[in-house]
């Protein structure tokens, strides 16, 4: 083995294999990092995408006549009187004015759903602030309802317009209208409906057969029986569908679980309900009255791709919204409600202001408690504590506290602060205290690390020239460790800012429609914080809350990025090398 050439040969023999292993190992590393980055991008991308719609709002701007008797029932212009006014009625009237043809109660309800009545309160506030408006006609801006908003942003359904050049003559201008054409202009719609029905029937049959197969593989029992009955139901439904599909080419009734077809003709819109005579006649309700019943050579069939049953925004609402938009009464702008409003049941009015203020108050308490106590503890443990059982205990304790699940701190807060000391629930004060306890270990540990990073030689140097321990710490060690301490504290606070679970425990999960005040008194008022607001919204029934949630997340992330940027800046600015 001592022969140089034989050693070289031995080394060379294994070399290729070793380099292959090397490449493999390396690629694992790259893959891991790519995975992490990809997930991050996916996360941010999906949230960003979802949040887009929340940052703009479509505002309905209606001319509102503030008739004195309705606004000011007592007629004395006093605030009390103004508050008693029927503002919602005014808003309803303003909207009705745009669509005089709508008279049916059910349709009116649909129409009024284009805005939320909470706007009446806004109108009231505006008038109360400015009583001079009474009796005037003003343009009142209000966010259009969340569904209309989503529709306008194209998030509810796509629609396709097909230009028709065949002459068509409507039977009337409003109510039931049938449109007659010489050629079967509506035949393609019938075919599409038939296709659709067939496909759905087939899907049901497939599922039924799968259930049956599975049931056969099982022992007889309740589960199998349930499967078999499910299969039977599916088969029955498929039967019905097939039947209607078979007759579709004769005369089709476009039920609401099929794509909606709207005929736009002579300035009006007719929703097609049945097609008959081989596609030459389409009958339906005029959602928007026609200007005339003359035959037209140029008209359009509009297909709403999502069936009406699968959305919470009716065909009529679509038509009205479009009409309002066409009339220039709807404008899209940056959603300031998101920042100036507190929480609301209605997505279009919901904002994060309340949560933001709650977060600020909570963080204020947390910072005031956690940073000084944490830094003092770190100084004590690192610089002064004698090595004994007590300090060992404190050390182990702190290290463990750092890894205690945050929810346990919530339990502590609930049991001690609220139940034992009787502090108010849902208050930023209690939230701040709980978060302070949770952040304390982080602050202590990072402060200790910063103190530890100051080389002992500096301490020896100071002691060597006759500085006392306290002087050594406060003159030399602490200034050197300060950037690290600050960074650690800020990162700890950032963590607390994003924390949710312990706050759920102490009831900061309430619905708070009014933003708490920033004064010290606000500390004991019920409040919520950003992450809890996110949690609440993510549970929201309205689909528009999804976007609001995402937007709130973006706001929270921006806050945290600001925090961390501050930490990085401090570290860069004050870091000293030794």
């Amino acid at each position: 083995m001592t022969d140089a050439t034989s050693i070289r040969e031995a080394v060379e023999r294994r070399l290729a294999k070793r380099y292959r292993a090397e490449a493999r190992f390396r690629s694992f590393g790259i893959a891991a990092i790519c995975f992490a980055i990809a997930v991050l991008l996916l996360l941010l991308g999906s949230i960003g995408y979802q949040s887009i719609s929340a940052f703009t709002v479509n505002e309905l701007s209606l001319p509102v006549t503030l008739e004195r008797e309705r606004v000011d029932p007592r007629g004395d212009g006093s605030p009390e009187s103004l508050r008693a006014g029927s503002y919602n009625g005014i808003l309803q009237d303003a909207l009705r004015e745009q669509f005089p043809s709508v008279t049916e109660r059910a349709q009116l309800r649909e129409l009024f759903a284009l805005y939320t009545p909470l706007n009446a309160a806004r109108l009231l506030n505006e008038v109360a602030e400015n009583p001079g408006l009474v009796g005037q006609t003003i343009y009142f801006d209000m966010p259009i309802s969340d569904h209309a908003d989503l529709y306008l942003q194209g998030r509810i359904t796509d629609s396709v317009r097909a230009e028709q050049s065949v002459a068509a003559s409507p039977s009337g201008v409003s109510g039931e209208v049938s449109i007659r054409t010489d050629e079967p202009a509506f035949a393609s719609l019938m075919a599409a409906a038939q296709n659709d029905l067939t496909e759905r029937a087939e899907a049901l049959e497939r599922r039924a057969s799968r259930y049956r197969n599975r049931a056969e593989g099982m022992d007889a029992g309740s589960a199998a029986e349930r499967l078999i009955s499910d299969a039977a139901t599916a088969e029955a439904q498929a039967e019905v569908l097939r039947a209607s599909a078979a007759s579709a080419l004769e005369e089709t009734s476009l039920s609401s679980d099929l794509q909606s077809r709207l005929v736009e003709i002579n300035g009006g819109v007719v929703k097609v309900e049945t097609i008959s005579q081989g596609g030459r006649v389409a009958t339906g309700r005029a959602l928007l009255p026609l200007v005339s019943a003359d035959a037209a050579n140029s008209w359009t069939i509009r297909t709403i791709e999502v069936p009406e049953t699968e959305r919470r925004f009716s065909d009529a609402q679509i038509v009205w919204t479009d009409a309002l938009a066409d009339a220039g009464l709807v404008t899209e702008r940056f959603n300031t409600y998101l920042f100036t409003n507190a929480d609301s049941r209605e997505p279009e009015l919901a904002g994060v202001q309340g949560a933001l203020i709650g977060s600020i108050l909570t963080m204020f308490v947390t910072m005031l408690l956690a940073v000084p106590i944490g830094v003092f503890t770190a100084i004590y443990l690192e610089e002064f504590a004698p090595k004994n059982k007590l300090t060992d205990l404190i050390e182990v304790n702190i290290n463990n506290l750092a890894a205690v699940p945050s929810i346990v701190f919530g339990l502590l807060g609930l049991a001690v602060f609220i139940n034992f000391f009787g502090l108010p629930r849902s208050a930023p004060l209690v939230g701040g205290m709980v978060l302070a306890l949770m952040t304390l270990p982080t602050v202590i540990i990072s402060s200790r690390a910063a103190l530890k990073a100051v080389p002992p030689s500096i301490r020896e140097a100071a002691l060597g020239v006759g500085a006392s321990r306290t002087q050594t710490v406060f003159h030399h060690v602490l200034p050197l460790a300060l950037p690290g301490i600050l960074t650690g504290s800020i990162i700890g606070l950032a963590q607390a800012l994003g924390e949710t679970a312990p706050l759920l425990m102490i009831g900061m999960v309430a619905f708070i429609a009014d933003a708490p005040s920033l004064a010290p008194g606000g500390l004991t008022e019920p409040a919520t914080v950003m992450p809890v607001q996110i949690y609440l919204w993510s549970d929201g029934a309205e689909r528009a809350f999804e976007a609001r949630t995402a937007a709130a997340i973006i706001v929270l992330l921006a806050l945290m990025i600001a925090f961390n940027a501050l930490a990085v800046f401090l570290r860069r600015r004050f870091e000293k090398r030794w």
Partner: protein
Amino acid sequence: MSVSAITALTLLVLVSAGFYLGRTRAVASASGKPASLHSLPNYHGYFLAIWTAVPALLVLGLCAVFSGSIQSAVSALPAANILLLAGPPVAALIAGLAGLQIARGRIAQRFRARNHVERFIGLILLLSSVIAILTTVGIVLSLLFESLRFFEAINWQIQDFLFGLQWSPQIAIREDQVGQTGAFGAVPLFAGTAMITVIAMLIAAPVGLFAAIYLSEYAGPATRRTVKPILEILAGIPTVVYGFFALLTVGPAIRAAATFIGVDGAVTQSALSAGLVMGVMIIPFVSSLSDDVINAVPQSLRDGAYAMGATKSETVRQVILPAALPGIVGALLLAVSRAVGETMIVVMAAGQGANLTANPFESVTTITVQIVMLLTGDQEFDSPKTLSAFALGLVLFAFTLALNVIALRVVQKYREKYD
């Protein structure tokens, strides 16, 4: 100006006066040779300031604590309001002046003012560090106390709680069914927690570890500079955001994928989606801890291996990882405890049904989810339903504590080797 503001201002003036008095007296006692003083003049100043401020603040504190009882005692008297309002500040001022007077006489050339001031600072520091202990004591006591009440409520059937297979606390809310067996069997929760944790670790451990290895051993400084902050962003994202991500993006995707490959009964809120997202959340935790541990391996060991003719991967696998193994194990244990205690992701993404299942596509529930479920909304503090949350918290705390103790031990051992 409010009374409190006036009080604060007066106290401030008094304390500054104390400081100034101490300083001047000290300088005077040195008869023009400041170097002959035992302590610098400022320390004499601080000494008097402390003696002024502490008694005053103590009196104020006592007044605040007993204000309630005093209030009731003197409310019968006329002019009680004025007394209540002006009493504490005046008492505080008197106490401060008294302290100042007592301490004044001690200022002298050889007086060790510095030592006294430093002892006071030391006391403040010690008191701060005791708070950490109080927190733990508070946690343990509150959990234990409420848990005992819970166990009492279920007639000390602790084994049913720990080993029972059915979890349906809602039943217990009805008075006649209090403590019914089977209602508080926590095994489904434990199983759900375990499944999600395992899934999370299956993602986080390899990805985090390999990322750490690549960053510390392979990546150039430029890559490190860009990738590390990216991983840190992943760590800084609040868990509620992960929850939302799991709920709205990952969950539906997994359900779609499951349906596509023919798995039935897949739901949006599944153990898999919660576990996956939690795994992603823990990646930076594992990677940064591992990175620290790997970086703590001295460069000289790498040099040694390279100089022997080892390739990079050989150096990592045969020298660095074995050297860092205890640290990495510690890091992974900490990650597990993190996963077990994680709340928001599972609350939002794992569902709430207490299923005892091994199918990751089904929804499961965890300890933390149940705690949240039991304690949000209106609570009656006497119902076993509410109290059971504390018992669950106790289990959670004990388990994570044990894990942490072990992990910290391991990491500590490792640190000692290279410090």
